[in-house]
């Protein structure tokens, strides 16, 4: 079977290598290499998707490390999930890179930006194709690194390096769980390969306690990456990066890697229902709490960031109740409509040079394409028929209802109401009514490099949901090999409830912000305590700052004091002791050894001065010496002979 699969990550990786190594040579031309590379990857991904749909299972594997008894392979495999992820990642990456041509034009670190995007794309593609946990971990860490680098793209601005550090370190905490999981996995099974591990898990070949360690560890890693409770703090700060980066990494792909990891490892989770309960609850709570924060923030990107956290919570909720296909489905639709929302928001920010929604307004006329795109994204996010979010969110909620978790179901519905509310608020505040600043009044639509990706993503946000719809023949579930087992009655009920929830959210938001029947300010004052809690995002940041950051700093101070007072003193003492010892030895050297050497020279000199007198040139003297020599020989012979 002819496969292009292994080529998919190679092109962006090459682009990264060349752009990264050429430095100033490609100061402003990085995109000319990065975009063709990612387009080639997209084409290969689509071809691979078609092949997989035709029943192929492309696999490529190289042995990477070998010990007696086992080997670690550097293997890529493409199954339906991978194939879908490949297309999503390369498609969004392509659109974002094209969009960035306009958004990043004139940036001082243009090529570095494209190099990092290429590396991210390569690593993300490798991540979804890895056939074992170790390679997945490597790609996982590389995408984390790229996230750090791209969040810190504007590192000259204050607060940006801190945001990058926060993102990196917070996910790192989760990654510790991932590493523990891998260690437990290897200790328990002796392999990293997905297929072997899942076969063992299904046959009950892994001890239950080991399985708990593995699943919890994997979930910690996934929660860190996907910004689930209690790791959600980094994602809003990550909005310090360029907006296209937020669209690609912090909405569509990298944050979804956690969901992908859980989806991929679902066979393991099915063996430990308790951990699945945990995932479902964490997901459900995250979905609700993050959505609630979205109600009060004024920064358009932060609204979208909290929305992302909330939607990822939905996916986790779905996976937590064992709903593989709905979780993955929502991952895909979310990738499209959230990337669309971010890119549209980026277009707005590009036009008005602010992220504060209070300084926007009335942009619908000035930015027709952008506002249309944002509106489509918002409808998809709110779950309005027939947009993408409607299908995927409904299928998740239906599965939750079917699994019997009534509390979680109502949490999800509540979150859906809030979601519809905050995104409607964002639309109204940004695009409707009159401009509230001069910049907003004089905004201009961006060029086609930015609007064309918006149009394409709009079409996807509109239509991606149809892949899972009955009238399209349940294309996606069949592709993923997952049967849809909700009954029509339940489905209809859930659809009705969810649509009502969306309508409720949209309607009340319009009542508050469009028709002004109620005053949001007064509401905030009446529920001032709740408002403050939401504005502080439940105080996680303050808590972490006090416990972890301050704790680390004071620990560092203690250690530093110890270092100064004990270790440095010891080192200094060793140094001075060595020095005085060396001086003693030097003195010894000068007096004794030098004396000996010089004395030897002088002695030989003097002796030579005396001995040379014997060489008198008088033959008789030589003869005399000879005679004495003979005499001494005779005497010696006489005595010892």
């Amino acid at each position: 079977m002819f496969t292009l699969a292994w080529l998919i990550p190679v092109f962006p990786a090459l682009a990264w290598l060349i752009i990264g190594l050429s430095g100033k040579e490609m100061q402003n031309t990085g995109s000319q290499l990065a975009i063709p590379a990612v387009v080639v990857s997209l084409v290969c991904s689509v071809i691979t998707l078609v092949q997989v749909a035709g029943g192929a299972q492309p696999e490529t594997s190289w042995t990477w490390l070998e010990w007696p008894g086992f080997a670690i392979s550097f293997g890529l495999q493409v199954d339906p999930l991978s194939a879908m992820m490949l297309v999503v990642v390369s498609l969004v990456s392509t659109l974002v890179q094209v969009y960035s041509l306009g958004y990043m034009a004139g940036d001082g670190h243009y090529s570095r930006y494209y190099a990092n995007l290429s590396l991210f794309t390569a690593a993300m593609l490798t991540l979804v194709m890895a056939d074992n946990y170790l390679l997945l971990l490597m790609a996982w860490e590389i995408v984390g690194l790229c996230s750090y680098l791209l969040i810190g793209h504007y590192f000259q601005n204050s607060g940006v390096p801190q945001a990058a550090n926060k993102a990196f370190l917070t996910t790192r905490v989760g990654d510790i769980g991932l590493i523990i999981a891998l260690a437990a996995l290897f200790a328990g099974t002796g392999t990293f390969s997905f297929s072997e591990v899942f076969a063992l898990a299904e046959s009950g070949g892994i001890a239950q306690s080991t399985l708990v360690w593995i699943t919890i560890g994997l979930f910690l890693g996934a929660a860190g990456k996907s910004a689930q409770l209690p790791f959600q703090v980094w994602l809003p700060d990550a909005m310090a990066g360029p907006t296209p980066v937020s669209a690609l990494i912090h909405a569509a792909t990298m944050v979804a890697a956690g969901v992908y990891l859980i989806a991929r490892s679902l066979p393991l989770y099915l063996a430990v229902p308790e951990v699945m309960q945990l995932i479902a609850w964490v997901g459900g709570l995250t979905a609700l709490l993050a959505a609630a924060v979205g109600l009060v923030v004024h920064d358009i990107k932060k609204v979208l960031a909290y929305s992302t956290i909330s939607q990822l919570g939905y996916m986790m909720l779905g996976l937590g109740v064992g709903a593989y296909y709905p979780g993955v489905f929502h991952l895909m639709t979310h990738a499209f409509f959230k990337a669309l929302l971010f890119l549209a928001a980026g277009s707005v920010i590009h036009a008005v040079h602010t992220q504060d929604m209070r300084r926007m307004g009335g942009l619908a006329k000035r930015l027709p394409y952008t506002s249309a795109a944002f509106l489509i994204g918002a409808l998809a996010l709110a779950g309005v028929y027939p947009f993408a979010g409607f299908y995927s969110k409904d299928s998740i909620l239906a599965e939750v209802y079917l699994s019997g978790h009534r509390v979680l179901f109502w949490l999800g519905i509540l979150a859906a109401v809030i979601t519809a509310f905050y995104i409607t608020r964002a639309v109204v505040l940004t695009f409707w009514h009159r401009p509230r600043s001069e910049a907003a009044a004089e905004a201009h639509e961006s060029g086609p490099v930015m609007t064309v990706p918006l149009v394409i993503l709009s079409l996807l946000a509109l239509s991606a949901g149809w892949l899972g719809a009955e009238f399209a023949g349940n294309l996606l579930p069949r592709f993923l090999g997952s049967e849809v087992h909700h009954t029509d009655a339940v489905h209809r009920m859930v659809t009705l409830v969810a649509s009502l929830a969306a309508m409720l959210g949209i309607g009340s938001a319009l009542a508050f912000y469009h028709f002004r029947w109620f005053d949001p300010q007064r509401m905030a004052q009446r529920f001032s305590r709740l408002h403050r809690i939401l504005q502080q995002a439940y105080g996680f940041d303050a808590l972490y700052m006090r416990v972890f950051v301050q704790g680390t700093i004071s620990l560092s101070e203690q250690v530093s004091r110890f270092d100064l007072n004990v270790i440095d003193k010891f080192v200094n003492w060793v140094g001075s002791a060595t020095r005085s010892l060396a001086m003693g030895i030097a003195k010894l050297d000068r007096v004794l050894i030098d004396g000996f050497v010089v004395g030897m020279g002088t002695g030989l000199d003097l002796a030579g001065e005396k001995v040379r007198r014997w060489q008198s040139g008088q033959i008789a003297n030589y003869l005399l010496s000879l005679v004495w020599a003979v005499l001494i020989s005779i005497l010696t012979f006489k005595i010892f002979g």
Partner: protein
Amino acid sequence: MIPLSWLVTLAGLLFGIGLLGALLSTNAVRMLISIELMLNAVNINLVAFSRYYGASQPHGEIAAIFAMVVGAAEAAVGLAIFVAVARNSKLIDIDKINLLKW
């Protein structure tokens, strides 16, 4: 029949006289003569022991023949050296010849 001790004594006396001459002489030719006397003393010893200890295997006599040849050669070279030195420096007093000095 001559006792071996007589021969050895004679050789010793001749060697001693030659040595004394070699040590005391200031004249190069006389030193040469003295050395020849010592060589003769050695030859007497060689021949005597050869006669008295191995008449059928006269290794000593062979040695004496070689010694004679060496003595003759030495005399010839010595003469040549003295002639050359005398021509160059008009000196034959070996105490004043110190070309070999340090």
